[in-house]
Structures are given as structure tokens and as C-alpha cells.
């Protein structure tokens, strides 16, 4: 299931829904709002999504993960609206028979979500100015360094 949420993500409930007796491993990735980006102090983030296509493309990413890694259970929830520092912006949960598939599928999903879905992020900085983030570059950096968000 892929969902866009205007409200806070209930990570406990998300985790509870992943419970599966056929799974031997569970991986979760939470993207959090951090207080600095490229040397600038960030006060909060604002996410905008074009929901009809974000959901459609998000479901496609999850289906691709299930095809690559059989017997996978995968869920992703992405926030929209204004988020404060520490808030969970995206939650990816993957349950699989073994840990290797769980880790790899979780990584695949968050990497694809970041670069394919019509979702945009605006950083609001200390001082009052703001700027849209171009994550084509973030995704490349993430893949090279291992950074997740």
C-alpha cells in the first residue's frame, strides 16, 4: 500500500500493520526532517504532492519491489504539508522471509520514491527565506554515499 498523508504518520500503527508470520525480517526506513541542509539552518519543511500520480507511481514502485523480491510485504506513507524538525516525512516498511531481501527492497523503494514521484520539498530557513529542493541531485548523492535521506 502506498499512501499520501496530510496528517502525522502513526509509525506504530504502520509497523503493526506489517505483522506477518511468513516474514523472518522487517526493515523500516523513516525519513526525518533535519535541521540543516548544505550548510543552511532549516526550521521546517513543506511537502507538496500531486496525489493522483504520486499514488499511482508509488504503487508501481512497490509492485516492482515485490517482483524483484518474492514474498515481500511493503508499505510506504509520504507526508504532505508543513513539517517540523524531527517529524517523519516518509515511512517505508518491508517484511520479507529473510533479512537480505528486506534490506535491499527497503533501499530500492526509498531510492525510487525520492526520484520518481511527483512530490516536492520546500525548505524554510532560519531568517524567513525558503527554497525548493532539487532531489535529482540528492538521489545521486544518496546512492553514492549511502545516505538515506
Amino acid at each position: 500500500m502506498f499512501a499520501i498523508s496530510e496528517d502525522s504518520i502513526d509509525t506504530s500503527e504502520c509497523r503493526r500493520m506489517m505483522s506477518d508470520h511468513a516474514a523472518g525480517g522487517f526493515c523500516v526506513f523513516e525519513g526525518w526532517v533535519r535541521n540543516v541542509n548544505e550548510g543552511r539552518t532549516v526550521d521546517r519543511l513543506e511537502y507538496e504532492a500531486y496525489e493522483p500520480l504520486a499514488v499511482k507511481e508509488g504503487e508501481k514502485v512497490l509492485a516492482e519491489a515485490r517482483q524483484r523480491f518474492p514474498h515481500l510485504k511493503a508499505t510506504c506513507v509520504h507526508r504532505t504539508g508543513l513539517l517540523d524538525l524531527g517529524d517523519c516525512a516518509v515511512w517505508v516498511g518491508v517484511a520479507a522471509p529473510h533479512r537480505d531481501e528486506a534490506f535491499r527492497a527497503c533501499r530500492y523503494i526509498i531510492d525510487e520514491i525520492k526520484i520518481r514521484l511527483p512530490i516536492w520539498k520546500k525548505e524554510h530557513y532560519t531568517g524567513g527565506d525558503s527554497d525548493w529542493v532539487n532531489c535529482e541531485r540528492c538521489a545521486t548523492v544518496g546512492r553514492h554515499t549511502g545516505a538515506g535521506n
Partner: protein
Amino acid sequence: MKSITVRYFALFRENAGVSEESLQLDVETALDVFEQTRDRHGSNEPLGHCKVAVNDEMADWSTKVADGDSVLLFPPVAGG
């Protein structure tokens, strides 16, 4: 000329000052729509970082557009 509804998101919406507009355009493809609206609104985002949808389906820049189509222009995305 074709009647095209162009929808803008995030940075493109801010550049255009509107979220959508109906335009009469001499265009064949989604790329033509991108280029003509870019000239109109002064956006300078590289094409390779942007995406497009036609009638609510993700599309390629070479996708043909028809009279009455809706073209959605997406600036560089940043999920996660």
C-alpha cells in the same frame, strides 16, 4: 493551434503565478508545451530534471498532445 490546459506545480506554479491556464498553442509534443511555457514564464530548470504528464498519465517529452489535452509540468521532484 490547439487548446491546451497547462498545470504547474511547486516551483513552476510560483514562476507562473497561477496553478493552471488554458492556452492556445502551436504545439505537437509535450516538449513543445514545456518550451513555450518556459519562455512565457522565464523558468530555467534543465529539461532533464523535469517530468511531464499528459491527461494524468506520466508521459515522455516526445508524447503527442491533442486539442483539449491537459499537460502537467513537474519541476525537479524531491520526495523523501
